[in-house]
Each structure stands twice: as C-alpha cells, then as structure tokens.
C-alpha cells in the first residue's frame, strides 16, 4: 500500500511538473495554509453550522497542490481556507502537516473537501468511517503519466533512442581483454558489440535502437566459453531490455564471474610458462605431438 501511495505521490509530482499535463485544477491563488509562506494561523474557515461532516484519520504523505495524500493511498481535496488545529486541544497549532505527521481530516459532505486538519505527531487509530469518505477520494485523475513511465499499452513510435549500457566486470577480468554484448537481435554472435573500457572495472557501450525494441543480451569476452556467470556461479538468465519512448536511457549491469574462470578450469601455472619445451603452452588441447595433455596438472612432472 505504501508503494502505491508513493506511486501516487510520484505521479502527482510528475503531473505537476509536466507542462500541459492535465491535472486537478490548482487553487486560484496561494493557499492560506497556516504554514509555509503565509502568515501563521491566517484566517481560516470554520465548519458551517449544520453542515454534514465526515472524518478520516491516517498518516500524511504530503500536501501538495491543494490535495492531502495519506499513506493509505487516498487523496482528498483541501478547501482553500482550511483550518489546521492540534488534534488533542482543537486549538491552532504550529505543527506543520508534513510527511509522517498524523491527521484527522474533517470533510464537508457538501463539497467533499477537507475543511479541517487536526494534526498530531502521535499515531492515530485507523479511520473506521472510510465508507463515509470513500466517495470523496480523488480517483478520477486525468493525469497523463510521464513518457518515461509508458512502457506498454501505447504503440511506440520507433524513434531512435540512444541506449547506454554500463557493466561492472569482476576484478579478475584480464587487463587486455575486451568485453562484448551479445544479443538475440544479432543472432547471439558472442563478439557482436565491443564495449569501451572506462576504468578498471567498467565498460560502456552506446547503441541506437528504435523505441519499442525488446531484446535479450549477455556479456562475453568474445566467445561463448568466456560468458558471464552469476554471483552463485551458475549460468544466469539472459538480460532483457525494452527500449522506452525517450531520447536516451542508461542501464547498468554487473558481471560477477566469467565462465572460464572456473576453479576446475586450467589455471595459469608452470604448464603455461612459454619455454622451448612447451612452445604452445596456452592451447592445452590434445594434438598428435602431445595426445595426452594434462591441462590441470603441472608439467613436466
């Protein structure tokens, strides 16, 4: 639920930041809340005598653009001249209704807006009258999500998107080796796209893709015997990437091990010393001249 609430908040922030994005109509002028830049305890409106009221209690996420967001994911519109009072005394308070404070919101059923916020720093019991206020919860948002959030549900335009892949390689990566990306779009050729080294442990590659492109990829050192392994030493699933409708995007991955750096694989040792008696020390393959190489053991014994 908290994630949902935060998502609502993020969307609200994005919507407020997006030029031209449809959003709830902001108040006509600066809100005379008793906090912020307005004078403390500026004139506030008291509940109209005889008005039908409903209440809702909860923890505040934020108050922004004339709406109060609670951690339950519910949001209510706030009357411009809302009263902010201390929860216990009912008197005016200097405690600002900010994130993590608790509040009892009193709503005017005629307008569905909050006319009073009773604030406290102490937890309040969950409102038992949610059914009474449910109808006033802001649900019919006409906000347009930011394009960065649109990954499905809308046909991509196929625009050219610069996608930058950054990969952190294991410290045991040989210093002079190259790192490549192999993708299903390139027929899984292991040395399809060479990456540029940017420091001791990081490689980078920028490639242009059409938005909407979906592909899988793996990191290699040029062959399929030198392919990435997970932190547990097992072969991980291929990475998947979807190119969203943006100008450019950066993506980071980590390679924990390389498959050829297996403890049971031949290690660099005396057998690999280039000597006249061992002119092909690194091949370690059976040949007619040496049909019985012992890759994992020292030679000569």
């Amino acid at each position, binding site marked *: 639920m908290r994630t949902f609430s935060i998502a609502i908040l993020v969307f609200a922030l994005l919507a407020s930041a997006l030029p031209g994005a449809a959003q709830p109509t902001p108040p006509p002028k600066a809100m005379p809340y008793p906090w912020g830049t307005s004078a403390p305890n500026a004139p506030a409106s008291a509940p109209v005598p005889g008005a039908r009221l409903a209440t809702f209690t909860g923890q505040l996420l934020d108050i922004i653009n004339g709406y109060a967001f609670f951690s339950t994911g519910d949001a209510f519109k706030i009357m411009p001249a809302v009263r902010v009072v201390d929860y216990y005394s009912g008197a005016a308070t200097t405690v600002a209704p900010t994130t993590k404070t608790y509040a009892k919101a009193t709503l005017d059923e005629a307008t569905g807006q909050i006319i009073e916020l009773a604030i406290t720093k102490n937890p309040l019991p969950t409102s038992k009258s949610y059914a009474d206020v449910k109808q006033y919860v802001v649900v019919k948002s006409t906000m347009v999500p930011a394009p960065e959030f649109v990954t499905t549900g*809308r*046909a991509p*335009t*196929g625009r050219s998107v610069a996608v930058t892949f950054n990969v952190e390689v294991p*410290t*045991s990566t040989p*210093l*002079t080796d*190259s790192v490549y990306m*192999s993708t*299903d*779009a*390139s*027929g899984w*050729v*292991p*040395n*399809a796209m*060479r990456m*540029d*080294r*940017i*420091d*001791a*442990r990081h490689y980078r590659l920028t*490639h*242009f*893709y*059409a938005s909407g492109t*979906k592909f899988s990829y793996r990191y290699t050192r040029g*062959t*399929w015997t030198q392919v990435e392994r997970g*932190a*547990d*030493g*097992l*072969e991980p*699933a*291929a990475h998947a990437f979807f190119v969203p409708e943006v100008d450019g995007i950066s993506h980071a991955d980590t390679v924990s091990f390389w498959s050829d750096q297996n403890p*049971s694989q031949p290690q*660099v*040792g*005396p057998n690999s*010393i*280039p*000597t*006249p008696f061992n002119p092909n020390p690194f091949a370690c393959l*059976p*040949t*007619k001249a040496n*049909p*019985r*190489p*012992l*890759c*994992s*053991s*020292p030679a*000569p*014994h």
Partner: protein
Amino acid sequence: MRRDAALIIAVAAMLALSSAPAVAKPAFEIRAASLAFFANVLGIIARTDATVTTADGLILTGKAAFVDLQHNRILVTGAAEIKNTTRSVRADAIAYDLDAHTVDVLDAAVGARRGAANLLSFTSAPIDSDRFDFPDLDDRRMYIRSRRAIVTPHANARFVPAIFPTSPGALPVPSYMYTYSSNAGFGASALGGATFDQPYGIAGGPTSLLAAHFRYEDGIGPTVALDDHLVYGDRAYIVSSIDSPFRSNRAAQLTAYQSMGPRFSQTFSASASDGIAGGSYDLTAAFGKASAEFDFSRFGASSTLDLSARTPDMRLPYGASARLRADIGFDALPDGVITVLPDHNNYATVWRHGLDLFVSTPVVKMPFGTQLGVTADASRTWYDFPHHRDALTGSATFSKRLSKALTAIASYSAAFSYDIYPGTQALFYPPPQITIIAPDGTPWPGFAAFTGASMTRGYTLDTFYAPSPNTSLRATAVYATDFPQFHGFGRPPLELRLDARFRPLPNVGFDVGRGYDFDWAGRRFTQWTFSVLP
C-alpha cells in the same frame, strides 16, 4: 580414431535429427512486390499487393501489410480482405492476432468489429489503436529486402530471396533465415574461437537452429563449420558442431547443458579432433553466493577430477573484498602421470589439493582525477608426490578520463609461479643438454637458469577514443618483461594494437583490428581481426 569417428557420427546424427523440427510447419507466409524487414523493431512491411497465408487456413490480402514479429500480429490495409474456405470479410484494415486468434476489422462505414479466426461472427468493439498501428519506419534502417517471408512465430523468419541494402559487403542470397528467438540457448556455441565468424541460418524451428559458419581461424585460414542448437525452454540446450568438415583437421564438439532448478546445473561436453576424443562432465551447485563444483574430464587415456568450493565475496575494511577457494582432485594416466620417474607406473593417479585466496580493492579515486583498482591472488597446490606449486599474481590499474571522449588506462600486472620438488628439483627441471636455438637462429644459453620459477610482468597502456556512439578507437601498448622469454619464446616484449569500430550506416557497423609485434621471432604484423556489427 574410432572414438573420433564415433563422436563425429554422433554429432552428424544430432545435426540430422534436429532438421526434423527445423522443417516444422511455419505459421504464416507473406508475399508482396516488396518486403522490407526491420531487425531493430522486428517488423516486416509489405508493399504493393500483400498476401499473407496462415497455417490455419486464413488468407489476408491488402495493398500493404505490417507484420509485428515481436507480438505475432498481422495488419493488412487498403482494400483489405480476410477469407477462409467458406467465408470472406472485406474492410479498410484488418488485424489478425496469431496468438489470441482474434480478428479486428476496421471499416470507415461500419466502425470497428472483433471476431474469431473462424470469421463466423463479428461484434462491435472499441478501436484498439495498438492493433491497427502501422508504424512509419525509416527505410534507412531496413535490414533485408525480399519478396517472400516464411515465419515461424517467436523463432525465425526466412526471406526468399534476401538482399541487404544497407550492408555493402553482403551479397544477395537466394534465402536467408533470421533467428529472433530470445532464448539464450541459441547463443551457446561449441565452436572454438575464430578471428572472424559469420553465421548463416540454414534451417530452424521454434526449438532448433542449424547454421553454417563462415570463419577465419588462426593457423587454419578460411573455413566453414556447421552447428546445431536444440533448446528446451530456458533450462536446457544441446549444441553440436563440426568445424572444418572438409579438412583433415576437422573437429567435432558437443555440449549439453541443463539447469536443474535455482541451485544446480550440469554440463556435459565432448570433442574429437586430431584423432583424440574425450569428454567432460561438470556439476555446479550454488549455496547462496557460494558455490561448489564437481568436474570430471577424460581425454584419450588421461583423466582429471576436481571437486572445488568457493566462498562468496567477503567484505574487508575499506571496501576491499576477498574470496577463498579450495579444491581437491586427481590426475590419472595408466602409464603414470609423472613420466620423468623410472617407476612412473606407480604413479598412475596423483591426488592433489589446493587453496586460492583472491583479494581486490574497489576502484578508488586518486590524485589528478585518476582511479585505481588493485587485485592480488595467491595459491598453493599440494600433490601426494613430494611436490607443490605456488603462484602469486597481482595487478594495479589506473584510469583517467582525459575528456568526454578519451579515456586512458594504465595497468601493471605481475605473476610469479614456482614449481617445487623438494630434493628432486634438478630431476624435473634439468639443465638443457643442448643450447636452445631461437627461431631466428640466435642461441639461448640463458634458458639454463630456468629451474621451475617463472616471472611475468606486463605494463599496459590502453587508450579509448569514442567521439560518438558509432565510432570508437582503441590503441593498446603492452610492454612485457618475463622470464623465460627470448626471441620468439614467450610473449613479445613490445606489442602495439589498434582496434577501430565504426558504423557507416545505421544498420551495420564494423570492428577491425591489428597488432604489431616489432619483429618478435620475425613477426611484425599480427593477423587482422574483423567482425560485422548489427
């Protein structure tokens, strides 16, 4: 030799067997005066009288068509018609979802309707813009031009013929199969490394691919290879291959891999070349971020077993990390592993155990905008014969970003190893009876100083210049001072290498490189490396 032949026959049988699913019934075929395939969005646009025939008996026609291979849907527009053996529906645009078997019809007079693939009844439906989306793709990004395409959904598309308009080096071919399956099992290969490797799909199905590889291999030259993939979901695959089948030094390989849940995987591989056949079995088990491995291999008469375990990376102060590895195993040979000894028959199996400690620092910021990363590795292996082997390696890498496009990386690495036979060192590392002669005729008396201890030191300067995402230059200089190292034995003391990556057209790029060895044993330039980028 019989084993060699047997394995080659087995691999050939595997290749033949996999052809069966390779000719599996395709789901649909597209014909038009002009087909354009866009690999970057996995879409085919058909212009001028497009006809799509599906395996379930539907025929869609229209002035133009778009096939979305990623989502397995077909859209025909302009005097569009869909029909089966008994019914026919005409509209301005018709969309067919091959996975859902639904037909969406859009007509200016009637509106949008939706029905099933049997075309029996249609009901009004809101316009689903995604289904009727006909993307305006840029022709510059076209990968293949053709007139006919046969598609196996979620697997591959065969184009007949295939013209590669944006690839200057690519000749038109009568048929070309493009595999777009996201199953990484298609990416595994049993083939060895090659300077150049260009695969060419011959046949394929949803779970199989038979491909020819046009290769250039060091020491062999231009050659061809065949490899075949059989994939079983994301959990298993079998890859078999024959390299250089028309040469005397042909080689056959087979690799089978299976993931057995989140903790275990097993791999079996076999190979045969030059009259030697063998195989290995590997079982890997993961315990959190630690792992253990069992490996047994047998080539010819020799066999090796290893059982190893590795700790996860352990955090050390200042962000450094370390991991420890232990292994136990044996080497075996019927005539004896330690052939130097007169009673070598008594040493048919030699057990060993070892420990390896690897430590690394994080990449830390240093003065003048540089960054530094350091690694160190120490290992010792004990044998049940009086013998142990020590190895110490270390590396330090400095990097500095000189500008937005230019990065310089300087590194130093050193490796020391010592093969120690207490009391019998001279028996295993005897002084040479003759003076070693280098390939250029230079005598090398200094080799007599080698008695089992070796040292390698390498100084590397790497510069990367990437002025744009499509252009990259890499220049590498390596200075190596090793022991033993002399006139063609060991690494060249100085080596320069230049690699360039460039993309003359949006859809195709090239990566070429070559090194220079400064007359090391008469060698100046190394062989070119070349690859075509998607």
